Structure formats: C-alpha cells, structure tokens
C-alpha cells in the first residue's frame, strides 16, 4: 500500500458520507485511525538489531457518529473493534489518524481540554465482573467521576455539602438504571452480572456525557437479562439525548439497537451503512457470510446448512495483501485470463494461500497418506498425492489450460518444491483482489470490496480521480470487469460500460438494493 493512499481515501469517504447524511455535522469523526502494537521493540531487541514487528490491531478506520444516533461496530473477536472504541476515547494512544469530537481534534488535546472531553464522552466496559473495583462500594464507584471532575464546583445552595450532593446524585443514578437507592453502600460482589452492568452504566452517566462508547455491554449477560439492559439503554438514550457507539459481536443485538452499522474485519471497516440496508441487502461478501452464519431462533432454522466461511481469520501480524478478506472470500475475483467455476477458483486460491502463508509442506501430506496406510508399505506415488490434493481442495473437474497449470503445480509440489509450486499458482491465478486494497465506496451504504468498486467509481467520481482513489495503481481494465459479477443496480441505470455489459449473471438480488 502506498503512503499516499490513506489520505486520498479519507477525502473520498468524507465527501461520500457527508452527502449521504444530508450535510449534518457528525458529533464524532474518525479518519484513518490506526493502532499498531509492536513486538520485539525493547531496547534489548534494538541492540541486537531485531526488526520490530507490528500487530495491526486497527488499520485505517473511518467512522462518523451523528448526534443522537447509535452506530454499531460489529466483527469477530480480534477484528479491532474494542481497540477502536478505546483508541478514539484516547484510552489508548493512536499510532496514526485523527479523531474529531464536536469539531475538536481529540488526539491533540491536553490538560484541561482533555479533561473537558472526558466529561463529555464516557464508556461502559464489556465485563461487569472485572470493570468494577471490588473494594469500593457502588456509591463510590458511581460518584468517583464526579469527585475527579470536581462536580459540583460550588456547594449547592440547599445546604448540602458537595459530598452529600454527590451521594444523592449517585442514588438518583442507581434508581435511574433500575437499582434501588438503598443499595448504595453495597459492594460489587453482592450484585448479579446484570445488576453490575447497571452500575457500570450509572457510572458512565454520572457526568452527563453526550457520547458513550458501549463496549460489548451485554455479551457477558444471559438473554433475559440482556433484554433488560438493551431496553434500559434505549430509554436512557431517549431521556438524555445520548449518542452511542455500540460495539458488539452479536448481530441480532446490533440489528435491534443500532441506527447505522460498521462491519469490521481484520482492523478495517469493510462495510458501513444504515442498519436495515446492511441487514437486508448486504454488499460485502464478509457481511453476507456473517449474516448467513447466525443461527436464528425459529423453527424454520432446523437443519439449515450454512455455507460456512472456510478457515480462520488470518493473523493481524501479517494480514493478506490487498483485500484482507480475500483468503476466505467465496466471491474472490478471478483474473481476466482465468474463467473457471468460482468454487474451483476458491480451491486453487486456498491451496496457494496455504502454501504461501501457513507453511504447508508436501511432507505433511505424505505423512498423512502414510498414516492412512497404517503400517503397510507405502510407496510415494505422485498420482496418489495429486488425487489426495485434488480431493482436499475441490480441484476435480477443471479442464483445459487451467487444469494443466494446476496439475503442473501439484507435480512440482509432490516433488517437495513448495515455493516453486506457489510461484506457479501465483503467476497463473493472481486475483485483482490481492493487488490493491479496496476502499469504502458507495455513499451512505458503502462497502470496501472490488466487486463494487468499478461501478461506484464510474458513478461517484470524476474520471480523473479514479486513478488516485485506487491508490495510484491505476484504473481497472474495463475488459477484466466484464466477466465479473458486478451487481445489477437498477438505481444507477446501467450508466457505465462495465455494468451495462455485465448483465445479471450472478444473483443480482444478493446485492441489489
């Protein structure tokens, strides 16, 4: 990725979303937020001349939260959603990027400015069992923020001391979140999980914030209690005019409570848009897979087989080049020179990915084959090897030049030359998805996916800007887009060549809006 790319992307997204939300000024605006953790970064490592390696927890996130709305951030564990939430409140220092809260730059704040920001933005943590100090009473926990920020500044007129005022305020807050005021002197261990989470919410409310980051506030709770807390959060938002950033992995909770959603994968936002749009017509293949995977609690769900995404999330130490999702994507784009069924292309890509990234060796295949022959004499026959590989990666049924290349690569692999086999596959099957990182495009409902890029560039951008927005790598060749399943979007009226010539070969209703 070139150095200049993030900045250009920022500009583009800024324009797109501003237009989508009707020019309303966002309360919180995050641009190109990055948070890297470094390993091998101690003085000792440097003396030994070791290169520090970075873990890219958050890798260029853009978000906007408008006053009074709830923005959901969803993703699987390790995708960087909690780190995003904590970094934008400056509970962690960002590696790069800007966060503007009500027009002011949070990353540049210091001293009094930062203190004022802390009063206006709060957080509720995920685990109600570890986020409350066990040695403080809930009254002290709730009023601690008041004390730190010296609220009230003057003793109130009615003769109460500041301390009494704070205690009354804590009682008020406890009652507001559904606990009783006479529980104020109890300790956290005397409460159940749901009650503790209520205490955590009361603490976040104490300073009358405008904005609250809710970091998985219900994921540690049972469903019946979870529903109580969700209802409470909705009531509080209405009563106090709060703005929420709601971090969660449970999609049904997100659907229930959020106005807009950002879906994260491996440190990046892959899709963002209004909740109903995302859930009813997801664009990004990852969002589609996520929604497909969720088990629904209804009788129709019985026996439903899900086309599960293969494999695991790759390590953020060394994320895949280009689109981070390409190693698991069922719709990974084939290069112009290849035209084979999508499943087989996926199989070839899986084989290549295993060879390149996961230290896959021919020896281990031989060992597996040997263990199947349990003790008998086993001759290392390349034909057996190739058959096993074809079975494992669904490569049977290829034909023509593609088959020759694959056979060739398997032959090389059977001889134990893994790198050469990987090179061979890379030369023949390199996908456009791995060459450049997709950017969020599409205005209000945006997806970072090459499947949508072409169409959106044609519609949204000046022709001159196309090259820049693609990170300077160059506009896609129109001929390569012709055989791709760009969704047939009736709204855009097929204005562009790519969309026009594409037709509706591949499930247009999956992506159409």
């Amino acid at each position, binding site marked *: 990725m070139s150095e200049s790319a993030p900045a250009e992307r920022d500009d583009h997204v800024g324009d797109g979303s501003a237009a989508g939300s009707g020019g309303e000024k966002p309360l919180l605006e995050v641009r190109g937020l990055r948070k890297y953790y470094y390993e091998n970064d101690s003085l000792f490592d440097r003396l030994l001349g070791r290169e520090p390696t970075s873990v890219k927890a958050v890798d260029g996130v853009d978000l906007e939260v408008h006053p009074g709305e709830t923005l959901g951030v969803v993703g*699987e*564990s390790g995708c960087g959603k909690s780190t995003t939430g904590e970094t934008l409140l400056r509970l962690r220092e960002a590696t790069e990027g800007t966060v503007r809260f009500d027009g002011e730059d949070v990353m540049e704040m210091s001293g009094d400015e930062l203190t004022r920001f802390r009063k206006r933005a709060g957080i509720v943590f995920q685990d109600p069992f570890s986020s409350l100090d066990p040695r403080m009473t809930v009254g002290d926990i709730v009023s601690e923020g008041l004390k730190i920020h010296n609220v009230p500044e003057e003793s109130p007129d009615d003769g109460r001391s500041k301390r009494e005022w704070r205690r009354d305020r804590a009682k008020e807050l406890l009652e507001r979140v559904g606990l009783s005021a006479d529980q104020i002197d109890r300790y956290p261990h005397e409460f*159940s999980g*749901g*009650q503790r989470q209520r205490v955590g919410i009361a603490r976040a409310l104490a300073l009358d914030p405008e904005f609250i980051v809710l970091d998985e506030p219900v994921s540690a709770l*049972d*469903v*019946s*209690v*979870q*529903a*109580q807390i*969700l*209802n409470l959060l*909705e009531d509080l938002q209405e009563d106090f005019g709060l703005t929420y950033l709601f971090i969660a*992995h449970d*999609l*049904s*909770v997100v*659907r*229930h*409570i959020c106005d807009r959603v950002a879906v994260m994968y491996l440190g990046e936002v892959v899709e963002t848009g209004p909740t109903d749009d995302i*859930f009813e017509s997801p664009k990004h293949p990852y969002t589609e*897979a*996520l*929604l*497909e*995977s*969720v*088990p*629904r*609690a*209804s*009788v129709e*769900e*019985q*026996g*439903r*087989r*899900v086309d*599960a*995404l*293969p494999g*695991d*999330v790759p390590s953020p130490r060394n994320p895949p080049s280009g689109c981070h999702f390409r190693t698991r994507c069922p719709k990974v784009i084939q290069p112009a020179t290849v035209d084979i069924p999508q499943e087989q292309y996926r199989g070839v890509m899986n084989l290549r990915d*295993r060879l390149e990234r*996961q230290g*896959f*060796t021919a*020896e*281990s*295949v031989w*060992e*597996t084959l*040997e*263990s*199947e022959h*349990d*003790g008998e004499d086993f001759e290392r026959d390349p034909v057996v090897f190739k058959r096993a590989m074809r079975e*494992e990666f669904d490569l049977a049924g290829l034909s023509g030049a593609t088959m020759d290349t694959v056979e060739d690569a398997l032959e090389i692999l059977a001889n134990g030359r893994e790198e050469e086999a990987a090179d061979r596959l890379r030369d023949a099957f390199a996908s456009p998805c791995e060459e450049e990182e997709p950017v969020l495009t599409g205005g209000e409902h945006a997806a970072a996916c090459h499947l949508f890029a072409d169409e959106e560039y044609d519609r949204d951008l000046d022709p001159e800007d196309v090259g820049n927005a693609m990170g300077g790598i160059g506009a896609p060749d129109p001929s390569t887009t012709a055989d791709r399943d760009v969704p047939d979007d009736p709204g855009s009226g097929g204005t562009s060549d790519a969309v026009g010539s594409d037709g509706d070969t591949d499930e247009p209703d999956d992506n159409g809006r």
Partner: protein
Amino acid sequence: MSETAPAAESAGAPDGHPDDVLRVRDLSTRFFTEEGQINAVESVDFTVRDGEVFGIVGESGSGKSVTALSLIDLVDSPGRVTSGEVWYRDADLADEFRDELPEAVDGDFVDTRQLPEGVRRALRGPAFSMVFQDPMSSLNPSITVGEQIAEAVEVQRRARANPRSTRSRTQGYGMGRLIADALLPNRGYTSESSMNRAIELLEQVGIPDPAERAHEFPHQFSGGMLQRAMIAQALAGEPDVLIADEPTTALDVTIQAQILNLLRDLQEEQDTSVVMITHDLGVIARMCNRVGVMYAGQIVERGTLADVFDSPVHPYTEGLIGSIPDLDDPDPRLQPIEGNVPSLLDEEMGGRCFFADRCPKAMTDCLQPTPEYDAEPGSDDHAVRCVLARREYSEADALPSDHFDRTEEVRGDE
C-alpha cells in the same frame, strides 16, 4: 412425579419411545458447600433417541452443565448425584448384569447409576463422551494435540482388548512405567498406530495438514481448530451418545457455523445421538430435534422443536423467546423477564414453582410444587412443569405483585 411416566415408583426403566437410547428419570444433583446445600439439578426427566440431537437450553446457573456431568458421572466433590436413574440401552451390558444386579436391568436397558463404579467408568468413551465448553482450558497445554488424542485412542484400544475392566486402563501405566518414562523421554504411552488413528481423526474433523498439526501444542491452534481437536478426541471411543456442552459458545459466528456443520455431519455419518447443551436458542433451532428448557435445575418444558418454539406453555419459555432480538424482524421493544436467576440454595428454594417470583402469571396454585404435565398443544412429547397446562390464568387467583418481596423481608427479619 411425572405424569408421562406413571410407573415411576415401580422398578425398571421408564416407558418411552422404542428408539430411546437413554432414559433419565428423577435425576438430582446437590452441591454441599459452606453456604449450604445447592440444588443444581432437581428431578430431571428426559429421553434421548437413536440418531437424534436432544437440546438442553437454559441460562447460566440453570443446571444444564451439571446435568450433563451427572449423566456421565463426572460430578466432583462437593457435588453428588443424590438420586435418579440413568437407563442406557445396551443389550450386551444388560446380559452381563442380568443375574448379578437384576434390579439394574430391564430388557435391554441398564441403570448405570446402580452399576459398580468401574463399569460406569468403562462406559465413558465407548458409550458416552463429552465435548467441553472451553477448548483453550480443556486440553493439556504441555502435550501435543496429536498425543492427547492418541492417548484417548489408546485407552479405548486397551479397554476393548479387555472390556469393562478398569484395570486395563490404569494398570497399563503404573509406577514402573512412570519412572521409566521420566528417565527415557522417548517412551510414550501411545503407539504409532494410535498416533496414526489420531491423525485420521483430526482429518475427519476437518483439520488441514493433520500429520503436521498433530505435533503442535494447543497454543498453536486457533479456537475453532482446538474445538475440532476436542471433538476428534471425543470421537476416539466411537460413542453412542455424544454430550456437547456449549461447544460453540467461545467461538465467533463464522467458526460456530463450521463447528455446527461438522457436528451435524458426524452425527449423520455415525448415527450418534447428541445431547446439545447451550444457552443459544439459535443453535438449538438449527441443530436439535427435541428440546428441554431448564430453569433453576428443573426441566420446565420439553418437547419437539416446534412444541417449544411455536406453542410454549411455560411463561419462562415464552419469556426466553421474547428476550431475543430477532435478526430478520427487529421488534421495537424486547419483552424481557424481570428479575434475576434464583440462587438455588436449598433453604431459599421452598416448595413452590421456582419461577413464580419472576412469573407474570403467578397464581396461588404456584406456591405448591408443580409436577410435570402433558401439554395440550403440539406433539405427544410436549410436557411442561406449569399449572397453566391444566388451567387458564385468572386474575382472581393471581398473587399480589409484592408477594415475594414480603416473604423475603419476613425471612430477612428472622
């Protein structure tokens, strides 16, 4: 006692469906702690049939995991299975004990609770095996994954050579071998053939590069891969009944989908019966044929999936279903169950319906212990522990809303 099993007081296995492989009756497990006696499982009845997935759903603390542990006799001190029968269908085992323990045998069924400890232990593996909730903490971090599975294979292999003897399992590896192994690090409990079988099992559960991954340690596996390895280990004994305790709770949704597909494939291939324990109604809906809903140690409602999801009778089941936000049709307001899960302390439970204090339809009848009734709507399997199965709710009999607050205060003052 249950109305569906009127022969409860008489000897022998409870009546049931001809395909039953497991019939559990009146199973109770108590924990004797310093704070008092905790009734974790309270007179639970259910049956599991051949080749089906039976789901147990409930919130944390409802006793679902302890039920599973009680089935396979893994409850640890201070807990104890205090009463109940676990009838398991095994013709060979029945023949073996017909003369010795006539009261523990009924037809092809054997009451495992009455069998000697050693035999119960020998059943773990070939008859029952279990997939635990947290794959990260359930495997030994200092032994390779392949070896841990090979151990399970080896145990089964030795047990098969000398069936139903506990000696074959423990005596095979005694003090002498232990000392020898400490001195000669390459001598293992496992043999090459059991290692090969372990690699086969790993391949069966969809782990790529099984031969290589078998030599890796648990920390080198991702959560989903470890859960697959745990399943491979549970399959080593080719069990008749596989108990899966929250097998996907620690996993992300996309990985959860993989594991659920795997469990379904294995279950269909090998015709295993599965007892699926989870708090996630979605997982239940996808996987299970029949369901039991647990609350405060009791199965409060059971029946087919359609019985429980579409025509629930118990207000707790209704509340549970009303609490989940629907992914496809978000309701503007959730209908949660008020209050919290009870503590299960014996002295605080009292002889009443345990849900009465949170129940929106609590009546004076609910202050009596509630037996299990056949429920009207739905299939023959539908049974519920609620007076609403027998009568309509009427305002006249409703408990005053502060009824339980008052009794609590009274108890507090004493």
